[in-house]
């Protein structure tokens, strides 16, 4: 036993060391982007990417911020993702109430339809949506993107929430029914408050998924006033006017909100990450 211990000792540190090295590799891009976002172009070319910055050089970040009007991009992303998250949760609740609790006829097929809708590639919808949105005057508007993602996210939310509400305790609802509560009041007075933990996980997921979307927002939001953060960064990537440190400043501005959401929502996310597994 004792011999075994001493024999193992170096081995266990080797395993830890290997995992730490891997973790450093995974985090390396975050570190290197942050280091170089605070350097001047001259400093970057003379000292290279690995040196620590001499003080806080903020010109690169400020120049990029002003050039793309980053505050507006943040607001656009927040607005679109926030409205989509709330609207998609409301739609998911209404659908799941009918499918999971109401058990309407043909619910299995409706669920399959919603799930297929959620997995369809956006490429197979994009051109007709682009064409139709031009016809009704919604092209290049935040509303178009909000409507599209509300439906896409609600399709997933319906699928998930229906199975959750399918196991809703019947007794509570029957008691309320005997007391003469209408269906509408039972939904908002009983079902929604009791399912609040699941609904908040869904809300956060919808928000982050919508924030992270790139393809459809890129097609629909062409004017600078409407673009979201990932679209603005994605279309500017590799532009010749950007020097090394301004590029890393732009990458940093994309990283910061995402990491902030991760830290804020971390507990809910790690609890609900299996929810995302189905997507």
């Amino acid at each position, binding site marked *: 036993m004792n011999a075994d211990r001493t024999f193992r000792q170096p081995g266990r540190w080797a395993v830890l060391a290997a995992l730490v090295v891997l973790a450093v590799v995974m985090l390396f*891009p975050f570190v290197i982007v942050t280091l170089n976002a605070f350097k001047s172009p001259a400093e970057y070319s003379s000292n*290279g990417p690995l040196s620590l910055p001499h003080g806080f050089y903020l010109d690169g970040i400020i120049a990029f911020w002003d050039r793309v009007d980053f505050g507006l991009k943040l607001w656009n992303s927040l607005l679109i993702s926030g409205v989509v998250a709330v609207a998609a949760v409301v739609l998911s609740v209404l659908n799941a109430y009918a499918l999971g609790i109401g058990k309407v006829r043909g619910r299995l097929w409706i669920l399959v339809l919603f799930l297929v809708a959620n997995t369809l590639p956006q490429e197979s919808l994009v051109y007709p949506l682009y064409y139709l949105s031009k016809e009704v005057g919604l092209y290049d508007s935040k509303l178009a993107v909000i409507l599209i993602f509300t439906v896409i996210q609600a399709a997933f939310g319906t699928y998930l929430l229906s199975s959750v509400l399918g196991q809703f305790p019947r007794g509570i609802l029957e008691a309320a029914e005997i007391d003469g509560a209408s269906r509408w009041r039972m939904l908002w007075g009983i079902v929604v408050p009791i399912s609040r933990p699941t609904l908040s996980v869904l809300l956060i997921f919808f928000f982050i998924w919508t924030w992270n979307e790139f393809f459809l927002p890129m097609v629909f939001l062409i004017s600078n006033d409407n673009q979201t953060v990932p679209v603005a960064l994605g279309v500017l990537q590799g532009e010749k006017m950007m020097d090394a440190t301004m590029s890393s400043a732009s990458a940093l501005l994309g990283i910061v909100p995402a990491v902030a959401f991760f830290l804020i929502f971390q507990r809910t996310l790690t609890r609900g990450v299996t929810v995302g597994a189905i997507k």
Partner: protein
Amino acid sequence: MAPPVAGAARPRGRGGYWLYLVPSLVLFLAIIVVPFLMNVATSFTRWSGVGTPTWIGLDNYTKLFKDARFWASFEHNVALIIAMAVVPTIIGLVLAAALFDYIAKRFGGRTASALRAAFYLPQVLPVAVAGVVWGWMLHPSYGAVNEIFGIKVNWLGDPDIALATVMAIMVWFQLGYPVVIFMAGLQRVDPSLYEAAEIDGASWWRRFWHITIPQIRPEIFVVLLTCTIAALKVFGPIFVLTRGGPGSSTMVPSYFSYLNFFEKVNVGYGSAIATVLALIIVVVTFLFLRVQMGGQGRDQESDS
């Protein structure tokens, strides 16, 4: 429970619940069903996006099956499935088991969760931002990777290595997802299984093969399938990093259809590509659903 009462109350009751589906069904029809059918219809036409489409039957599809770029784009999709589903699942299994069954026991749960968070962090980025980060790191003239190693490699501009570079980036991006899912799955494994195996003197490797993998098979399945679908759909990183190039060395179906829609204004041809891609993804999803429903069979029965 009480069939006669339920039978009498339900038919009238059920009808009312339909009303709650109406808002979604209207939006769903306008935003998913009609556009999807329009896309399928357009795939049988030649159309530049303005004027009236010309019906050409299956011409787009016959052209598609002879188009080398189309086949190449699916080959690249297979490469991305390896990079986004297969490799992260294999590495993720080893990492999750090492963190759960080794690090957590010998160095404490905090060390294990800190390492898990580090592996997961790339996953929180919007995939387009991940592309911006690596586009900067690998820039041919000022990229950090070349500067650090003192080399001059055009990682994304050399057709021989561009796809391998994109694959490596996607492994980095995707790896945290299986690690987190597998570790969550391991939480529900009965600890006495591991204890018994340890008392019997089973090595870590044997516990990995005979306990870890069989116990979290459902999670492995979910990760493989969801990542495969994500790999089939991949667009953002390709758009940001390479635009399918150089040449068509990193072309994927989603970007190929985008190119035909919005740059070459071959809308009919783009629609055919998108329809084929949708068909493949729906088939993969159905395979997934069938297995998933197989596990839920008993629940469904008690509902009806």
